[in-house]
């Protein structure tokens, strides 16, 4: 077994206390009479967003309670800090308060309860062994390695990514049919022209190449316009959600590999649509195409 860090007793570890939706109990804030932090009371730390929501700054008093009926416990705000932003927490509009574990337990009636215990092992490579041995204990808890937790934490985003991929398949099918319909119309328009070209001796291969070239050009032009539209939409999405959630996190990102993949896929689809059109055009004889 590795080393169990003094998570519960060192006093250096802070636990997050979740308050209610801003605007309602169980939190209330007031301004301290002294500008300096009251050193006789246990302190707490607030994220900058929470401080803005509550309308308090360092030195102010914040009262916490587990229930709306109290009892209320006053804490001076010792620090307002900007936390590392995590996508999993972005939609939370609740106030995030950090205080010492013992202080939080005191609010809850002094029970020695924690939500989780963080274990630091001497040899990180043996984390899985330690977790397995802890899980073998009939104590009613579940131990996870950091990798397990990361995988569990990202499950929601993997689901969303799968959802986006499924939607993209639908849009690709829709755009393929769109392209095919456009090329079918274009082929109808080219019918007489192709008949004449065949009659003056231009080979089937050249005609097919011309049709493929047209289809590829249409697909390429469309994909370039689409990429431009994508950049505009992406910027709008980032602007909107960064303001909505008051965060610098990036919600939509267009990378060069993504652009390359999109353009390549469009051109391939264009060539496929062109091939179908060329086949439909060239299966008729030249005189037939001229309406004779």
């Amino acid at each position: 077994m590795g080393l169990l860090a003094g998570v519960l007793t060192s006093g250096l570890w802070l636990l997050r206390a979740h308050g209610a939706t801003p605007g309602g109990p169980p939190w209330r804030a007031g301004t301290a009479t002294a500008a300096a932090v009251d050193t006789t009371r246990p302190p707490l730390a607030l994220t900058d967003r929470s401080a803005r929501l509550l309308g308090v700054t360092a030195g102010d008093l914040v009262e916490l309670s587990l229930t709306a009926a109290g009892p209320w416990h006053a804490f001076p705000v010792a620090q307002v800090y900007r936390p590392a932003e995590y996508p999993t927490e972005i939609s939370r509009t609740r106030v995030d308060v950090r205080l010492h574990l013992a202080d939080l337990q005191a609010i809850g009636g002094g029970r020695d309860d924690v939500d989780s215990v963080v274990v630091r092992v001497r040899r990180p490579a043996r984390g899985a062994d330690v977790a397995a041995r802890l899980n073998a204990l009939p104590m009613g808890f579940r131990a996870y390695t950091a990798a397990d937790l990361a995988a569990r934490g990202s499950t929601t985003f993997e689901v969303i990514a799968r959802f986006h991929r499924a939607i993209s398949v639908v849009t690709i099918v829709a755009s393929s049919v769109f392209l095919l319909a456009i090329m079918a119309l274009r082929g109808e328009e080219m019918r007489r022209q192709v008949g004449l070209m065949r009659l003056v001796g231009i080979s089937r291969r050249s005609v097919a190449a011309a049709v493929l070239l047209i289809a590829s050009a249409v697909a390429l032009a469309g994909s370039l316009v689409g990429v431009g539209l994508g950049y505009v939409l992406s910027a709008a999405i980032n602007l909107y959600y960064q303001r909505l959630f008051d965060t610098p996190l990036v919600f939509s990102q267009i990378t060069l590999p993504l652009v390359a993949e999109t353009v390549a896929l469009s051109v391939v689809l264009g060539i496929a649509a062109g091939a179908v059109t060329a086949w439909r055009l060239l299966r008729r004889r030249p005189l037939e195409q001229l309406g004779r």
Partner: protein
Amino acid sequence: MTALGFLASRTLRRNPVRTALVVLGLCVTGALLLDMTMLAGGLEASLGQLLGRLGFAIRVVPKGTLPFSGDAQIPDADGLAAGIVGRPGVTAAVPVVATNVYVGGGRAAFASFALGVPDGGTGVYTVLQGQDLPRGGRAEPPDGTGAAVPVVVNRNMTRLDGVRIGDEVVLSGAPVPELSGSAGSVRARVVGVADFYVDLATQRSIALRTVDLRRVRGVPPGAASLILVRVSDPARVGAVVAWTNARDPRVDALSVGRFIARAGGRLTYFNQFALILSTLSLAVSFLLITAIVTLSLGERLGEIAVLRALGMTRVRVGAVIVLEGVALSVVSLPGAFLLGLGISGNLDAILRGAPGVPESLHFFTLTAAAVTRTVALLIVTGAAGGLYPAAVASRLGIASTLHAEVQS
């Protein structure tokens, strides 16, 4: 109108391959539109259906919260419930304690979601096998040495832990009963298996009487997590909500509509995603119809000029073209709905794989409003898609067009 419809249908049937391609494209974009319309209000609709099935018209929760969203409690829930049940039209007010307990049966103890209800027969869950909790009876909690308290478990506990009706388990506030501290532990006997409505895929749930659960978790007497209120007359919901909010400012009394609205506030991602994709699918449908109808118009300019020469007015010529766009939309509707329903099933299964989604909730819900909105939007898009070519057709000069046709 019959003549216009005849002309429009003849035009569409003239080139069946082209029409089929356009209809196929519209089926796909229409399916996407239907799915996004279903997604936009899907969770709210699904939640509404679930709440309707439960039969409680009002939920009283600690102010600013949602049911089961945290540890906050209503301090004098029993007193408040007694006051509510005395209001006209109220048939029941059930204070419910919701918390987590450890259930020890064999080798290990498992964390379980626990519901404390005053008596059996409250309707908070539906008993599937065995019996419900007893009604009335003992008012005082057991001292731990007496008879086992009755509990009802969910199907996950029978499936995952092998718990059966008649089994005896130990409930405690800590993984090991000896660590429960001031709170206690009780012996319990499983009397029934029930459906708890909002269980997660692998969530273990257990129901027991409030007095027993308060003892296990050290919940203060009279406190509860929420109060479920059943009314006989839906028209009285507003009055009961207003009375409850006035009686205790520390609580929120939520009607089903307000509850859904508050929960819906947390679903901005899906609503906005649906809005963006709906707009895109409508734009693609519009472009598809406009492009196809406009291009096909170029092939029959002479025909339209002849119709004009025969006395057909500009308005009627334009109407034929607009009708073609509408007809394309209408013809694509059955395919769009079939495809959309098929795709939505798969998309729903993907999203329900996310952690924390109750088994009985769905992201994509087919409602009458979603169907109406999709049909209306597609038909309007069809008409809008035909407007530009209609304007082109109605402005055609008869002589010049016929002259150009003869020359070509």
